[in-house]
């Protein structure tokens, strides 16, 4: 499990092929690694380094800058409570205190059974539904104590598995088109630009498979339903049952 499995390694190579320079794919590939293992393992970062042409230390050097990447195991559900200004004015610290008491952990901590990790987060951009929390980066707005407790029990019971994927999963939708053949269009770091997007017109255009029809329609991709049921879409901030606020 520590290195990328063959499927993920292929996905990583597909991602790398999208960029003029392999290193640009580092963050997307690290998301892939984190989706596989739940956090970034040293062996995994080593493997990612091999794929994009970096030392493991350089991979860690980049990863450690970003809040979303974890280099230690975290719980199955990462609960991020926003406490920034808009949520704070709506009682976010009271909510965070309640979460701490309810879970018996401080921000940064993980419950003994490995189910929940609690975070004190910066603005998550759902300020119209303050206070808000995310669970594995899926949004739940208009929180109060009762809703928070109910959210946790539904998560623990597995009721929300459709909308809240396992921790580390960022994007469940795969790019299905426009992926140049791995290694064919992109040189090593510092190499030429992909053959197919040269502006002077000598390029070969986007690879043939890019034009192939059959991308999933109607917003459903890879079996992922992009309609939200339990979580809060950003548009609800202005189109709730009783606000109707786009003007």
């Amino acid at each position, binding site marked *: 499990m520590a290195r990328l499995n063959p499927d993920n390694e292929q996905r990583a190579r597909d991602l790398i092929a999208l960029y003029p320079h392999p290193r640009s794919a580092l963050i997307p590939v690290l998301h892939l690694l984190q989706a596989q293992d739940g956090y970034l393992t040293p062996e995994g970062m080593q493997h990612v380094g091999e794929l994009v042409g970096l030392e493991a230390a350089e991979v860690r050097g980049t990863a450690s800058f970003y809040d979303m990447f974890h280099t230690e195991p975290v719980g199955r559900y990462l609960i991020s409570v926003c406490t920034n200004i808009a949520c704070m004015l*709506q*009682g976010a610290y009271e909510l965070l205190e309640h979460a701490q008491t309810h879970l018996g952990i401080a921000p940064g901590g993980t419950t003994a059974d490995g189910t929940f990790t609690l975070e004190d987060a910066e603005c998550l*951009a759902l300020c*119209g539904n*303050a206070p808000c929390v995310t669970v594995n980066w899926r949004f739940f707005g208009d929180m109060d104590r009762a809703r928070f407790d109910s959210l946790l029990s539904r998560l623990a019971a597995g009721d929300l598995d459709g909308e809240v994927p396992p921790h580390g999963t960022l*994007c469940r939708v795969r790019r299905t088109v426009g992926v140049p053949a791995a290694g064919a269009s992109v040189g090593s770091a510092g190499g030429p630009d992909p053959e197919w997007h040269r502006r002077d017109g000598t390029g070969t255009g986007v690879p043939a498979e890019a*034009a192939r029809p059959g991308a999933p329609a109607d917003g459903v991709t890879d079996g992922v339903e992009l309609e939200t049921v339990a979580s809060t879409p950003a548009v609800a901030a*202005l189109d709730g049952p009783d606000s109707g606020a786009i003007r």
Partner: protein
Amino acid sequence: MTVTDAPRIVTRRLRRPRSWTLSSYLEDGGYDGLRKALSMSPSEVHDAVNVANLLGRGGAGFEAGRKWGMLAKTTPVYLAINGDESEPATFKDHMLIESDPHQLIEGSLICAYAVGADQVFLYTRGEFALGLERLQSALNEAYAYGAVGRGILGSDWSIDVVVHPGAGAYICGEETALLESLEGKRGYPRIKPPFFPAAVGLYGAPTIVNNVETVSNLPWVVLNGGEAFAALGEGRSKGTKIMALSGHVRRPGNYELEFAKATFRDLIFDPSLGAGIPGDRDLKAFIPGGVSSPWLGPDHLDTELANEKIAEVGTMAGSGAVTVMDDTTCPVRAAWRIVRFFHRESCGQCTPCREGSGWVEKIMHRIETGNGRPEDLDLLLDVCDNISPGVTWPPAQTTICVLGPSIPPAPAAAVRMFRDDFMEHIGEGRCPFPPDRLPRGVVRV
């Protein structure tokens, strides 16, 4: 003055069922703007945007057309769309990405066509998981439809678009940090000059970085013409702007308003907009343009919502994020929370920002928790002065990027407007305000 019924340019589709799908987008004229753009020359599209005087919607308010005009004439050229929306209390791009990803893709393509870009990167904040999924799904659909890829919509123009997730760093919304991040590095802003990525950007190549809301306007601008866009608003501020309203209002949310046709009073109190403060409490202060901007008080409620009008009163329109604070709000706590944010998000390159943010945070925290000393106010302002000399507006720059100078405005405004509250904290050795509480039953209109 009342709120006009100007066309909603970027938010009009959001109420449609499954607004993020291609079928929904096509029902409402989706990709017609791109089609029209492809029938024009790139410079004609550029001219239309110049006529529209489309200002960047990310916070700096720089003319998009002028930015495009600075592009160095070498190849390759890249376009990076800034969807790393992290300014506290700003939540407009989150909504646009999640609910109308095709509009974003179409706008990006029009921009790419106008500037002659070779590849487009949609840099999206990592925390927007649903947004990333809908955007990638929309891109897959757009490829299949023929709007992206080779021979776009039957023309001989080809381009590839890549959805690129960030990974949680406010600073990556700064355009040079965004490019570093896009190169797979730590999000350290680059030293200026060169001042614009249009000269030296991604991989050292000329690069245009535009905000999500900015390019989302482009399909409308192309379809209706730059003159129609410029007919809305006044002065430099043309078209509409999404105002992200949060804090102590009955109806927080995103409101797309014509520039210069409404005031902060309308936004906060109009029944069709913010609908006033819960419990009809008094307004204490409001943050007019994201947490980097100096606060305003009730005296400035009648300021028109237009970039230059807001600048006239000593602050900025910024990202359009307005946060309302009622009379129960502790200004020390509010300013402390803002400073704490900058302290956590400082990338650490420049000493004034890295160290200064921490010291200001510590001083404000001890005042808020009742451990303040009488000399702390002077100390606080002195540290602010070291971060941005003079603590003026617009702020003086001592650091590589504008995060550093964004630290002092909130505490400086809080001290200027509410010095008595600070002295009461220090004198009584406690915070005299009630704690922020969860609403007891959400207030509904």
